[in-house]
């Protein structure tokens, strides 16, 4: 019972606060328009742009994953022999697809 009262009290408080906030946020149509120093936009500002760190992160993960698995692999390489070599070859082939993709996107062109 006590829990219920506390929860209901908080919910009521939150609703009252939200009501108060909404009143303050009421703005006229000109105020809802973007500020362009008196100018006007042709389209909405919502747009897809090139997020440059994305490709950088991709390359980082590609190279870092490689190194992360290469250390334990190097430890067991002598005992496992050819199997380990083939497995690592497959792993690197898959990872290199990501690197090739990054290459195509131009991540290696440092500016």
């Amino acid at each position: 019972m006590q829990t219920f009262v506390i929860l209901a009290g908080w919910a009521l408080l939150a609703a009252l606060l939200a009501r108060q906030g909404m009143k303050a946020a009421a703005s006229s149509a000109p105020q809802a328009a973007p500020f362009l120093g008196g100018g006007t936009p042709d389209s909405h500002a919502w747009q897809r742009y090139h997020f440059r760190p994305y490709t950088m992160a991709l390359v980082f993960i590609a190279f870092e994953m490689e190194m992360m698995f290469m250390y334990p692999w190097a430890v067991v390489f002598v005992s496992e022999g050819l199997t380990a070599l083939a497995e690592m070859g497959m792993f690197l082939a898959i990872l290199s697809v990501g690197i090739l993709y990054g290459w195509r996107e131009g991540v290696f062109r440092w500016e």
Partner: protein
Amino acid sequence: MGMSPLARLALRAPVPVFAAIGPGRQADVERLLARRGLRRALTPRDAAVLLLAGDLPPDAMEPLGRVHDQVPRPRRILRWTDRTETGDAVADRLATAWRGLCGGEDGDDDLQPDAPSNAWRGVGPHGQGGTGMMGGTPYGRPMAMTGLDIRDGLQLDRYTARLGPFAPMLPPGLVLELTLQGDVICDAGVVCPPFAQPADADAPVLCSARMLALLGLEDAARRVIRGGRPGALWLRGAVPRGLGRIEGGGDARERLAGYLAGTPAALAVPPLPELLSGLEWAEAMLVLASLPPSSILRATRLREAA
């Protein structure tokens, strides 16, 4: 006067003024707003008083209405059209207006009707929605469409808007039509040239203050305008090397160093579309701020004549 404690606190803050500058008054306004007790707001939303300096041409009245209505209520518009009125007198009027607003005065009404600039026009039976992520016109305004990106060769959305004539980072009166992809300027066009300003607006002090304010060093900019030292170490390090290089005029960093040393710049600026295309937004604004207003005016006139 029954003033709430909050209003009394607000009254002690500098007056937030958004400046709409007309022909010939740029230097006056910049010197005025560097005074103690006044603050130049960067957006109307941040301001309470709209200062209109000079006589605006008729085609600037509609943009003025838009800016005026974006100042939150209660607001006050002050006109400074009389050239003989001193800065002291205007500063007094601004302070009086601020005192009135803090004291609970109603302020000025909207100049434009309180209706969305575009009517809702969706494609659905109830006027909702569009087709997918592109092609819809929510709130009567289309979504951005893709176009070839100039930097990476990807298909990215293009955003076209006209900026000005009262954008605080542009010279007063200049209306630029910019097409942006992310923050890269793909296309730039001059819709209206800036207002003509007296030679005083080219003063090295004001040019350097414009750059400093744009870099976020507003206090340094104030100190420079008031005739002091900027009070910051290695200022030109804030401007990247090689930005906005102009034949015979150096780059933006060298121009800032020149202004700080007190040498005015006389430049032959290439047409603005050539100068701004391919730059990022922040770089482009810094390049524009690094040029004296008269050079920008000449560059836009060159464009019109061509």
